[in-house]
Structures are given as structure tokens and as C-alpha cells.
């Protein structure tokens, strides 16, 4: 649910990074935070456990510049990936404008990827959304590891409808901004289509 503020001449959109535990959602946000001009970003907030696993969410506000005289602001959220935090994941999806699904490319995480994607669909449906209608992109992360599945295989499992997809190494930043730009574009395009 984007928020158009005529007074502040701002448009605010919410993007959620979803995916199985340890797939690199927080790492995506950390990289974006490190590489963004200080004037264009707010604080990166992480509600994490003592072992740095996401407990509730990470949050990063970004300013992307102006469009038709309105400041385009994006609020990036991650969900906690661990299965038992499902109640929290549902809350974070409220009001979402666009979703990035981060898959862990390692062969042994195939099942976790599928499970998490199904969980995303279920939780969106509960909120009255459907993934097919939302701006949605997929990132195949950890491409630098030795035991990764082929992209073709991952595509077959996770992206049968052919939404925009990106190979990434979030740790070093490969594919991180490409993913963000793609989802931001889709969100703005949706805004244009939907007439707000």
C-alpha cells in the first residue's frame, strides 16, 4: 500500500525481502546500506537475536530521487526466515507494494526454498493479496558457492511464471542493486497502471 503525501510531495512504497533462513535477505539490505549515499538513506534497523539472526525485521528507508516532482521513497523490510517466526512474517507483509524473493542457490536448500515460497503465497493470500498480482522479482543468491544448483533448475522450481530474476552474491554486492531496481521499477509501473 503506497502512501502518496501531497503535502510533503512524497510517494512511499514498501518492499519486502522474503526467503528461507540464512538465504541472505539481511545481507542484501546491509550491502544496499553500505553503498548508498548518506543523504539518500536512513538508519538500517535490525531487530535480531544475539546470534544475529533476524528476530522480527530489518528496515532500511531509501530515497531514490524525484519523479514528477514527488520524492520516491522506498522502505525496505526483511522478514525473519526461520520457519517458526511465521506469525512475524505475516505482520511484515501487511501493506506490501513489492516482493523480492531471495533463494539460496545451494542444492541442499532446494526444499527450504520451495517451502518458503509456498509460505509467502499462503501468507499473502491471508492478507488478501496474491503473488501473481504483486510486483515480484526473484534473486538466486550465493552464486559464488561451489555446491549451487543450475539457474535453469532453480527457475523450474521457483519461477515457472518467468518473473524478473537475478543471480547474486549479496555478500559482495553482485546482483543486489539490479534486484532492487527491478522491483522498484515494477512497483512504480504498478502505481502508474493502478492510477494510485
Amino acid at each position, binding site marked *: 500500500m503506497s502512501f502518496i503525501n501531497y503535502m510533503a510531495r512524497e510517494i512511499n512504497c514498501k518492499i519486502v525481502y522474503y526467503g528461507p533462513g540464512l538465504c541472505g535477505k539481511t545481507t542484501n539490505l546491509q550491502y544496499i546500506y553500505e553503498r548508498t549515499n548518506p543523504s539518500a538513506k536512513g538508519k538500517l534497523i535490525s531487530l535480531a537475536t544475539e546470534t544475529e539472526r533476524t528476530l522480527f525485521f530489518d528496515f532500511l528507508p531509501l530515497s531514490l530521487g524525484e*519523479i*514528477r*516532482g514527488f520524492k520516491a521513497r522506498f522502505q525496505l523490510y526483511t522478514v525473519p526466515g526461520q520457519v517458526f517466526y511465521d506469525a512475524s512474517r505475516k505482520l511484515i507483509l501487511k501493506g506490501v507494494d513489492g516482493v523480492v524473493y531471495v533463494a539460496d542457490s545451494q542444492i541442499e536448500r532446494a526444499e527450504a526454498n520451495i517451502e518458503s515460497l509456498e509460505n509467502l503465497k499462503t501468507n499473502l493470500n491471508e492478507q488478501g493479496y496474491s503473488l501473481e498480482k504483486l510486483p515480484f522479482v526473484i534473486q538466486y543468491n550465493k552464486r559464488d558457492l561451489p555446491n549451487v544448483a543450475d539457474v535453469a533448475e532453480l527457475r523450474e522450481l521457483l519461477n515457472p511464471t518467468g518473473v524478473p530474476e537475478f543471480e547474486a552474491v549479496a555478500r559482495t554486492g553482485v546482483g543486489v542493486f539490479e534486484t532492487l531496481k527491478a522491483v522498484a521499477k515494477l512497483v512504480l509501473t504498478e502505481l502508474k497502471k493502478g492510477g494510485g
Partner: protein
Amino acid sequence: MAKDQMVMYEEEFNQIQLVVDKLVKDANAKVVFIVDKNGQLIAAAGDVDNLDTTSLASLTAGNIAATGGMAKLLREEEFATQFHEGSKQNVHIQLVGNRVILVVIFDSRSSLGLVRLRVKKASEELNKIFESLLKKVQEPGADTPFGEITDEDIDNLFND
């Protein structure tokens, strides 16, 4: 999704700002701000210069969302009020019309009783304003500046 669209116009914004400005004074508060349930800051008043209101807005919404989740599990409709007591500052959080969140930060110059009293009055006023805002947004033909954006406009945003 259009029914969920949050829009803020100048007229309503000014009305809301008046309410929060007044609440800062009436409740002897340090800071008052209003956030929508998705964590977007709507208005703020008081000593906000050294405050990261964007982060506070997002955390407040997360807090309300978590409490709402608890309420659901306990078969309560909502826990509309929260109070956090610190050693120097306190935070009073009130859900208004199940749509926006009114946050009051105050110290020893005020009291919980006074804040509650003033928040109650302000909530009623805010509720009215947001109701009429909602009607306005849902009116057919409510214009949007984004219907006319071009692919080029969007691309330009990403030219580093």
C-alpha cells in the same frame, strides 16, 4: 489494492498538524507523532529535530502489529493502548480508528493521567479527519499524479 491506498492532501494534513501541535502543548509532551499502520510517518510535532522519526515510525508500526497479533491469538479485537515507561522518558501509543497510531513521548513534566486524557480528545478529532480523508480518497475520479508517469520517468530515477 486501491481501497487501501493512503493519500494525504494539504487540507487534511493541516488539520492533523493542528491537532498534534495542540496535543504537544495540552499534554506537556516532548514529541507527538502520527504513523500509519504500515510505518509511514504522517505528521510530527514538538522537539523532533534530534529524533530519527522515520525509524521510530517503522518500529512503532512493528510494535502495534506485534501487539495486534497477540490480541488475535487471545481473541481480543485489539490492544488499542500501550505505555512504555523509561527512567527519563515515557511513550504512550494509541491506535486511532484502527488505522493510524498516535504516539506521545513525555517526561516528568507531564503525567500518564494527563497524557491519557488529552490523547482521548485528540483521538476523537483525528478519527473524524481520517474518516473524511478516506471518503475523499475513495471518491471516483480522485486524481493521481502517477497516471501520467512514463517509462522514461521511471528509468531516469535509476540513472546513477
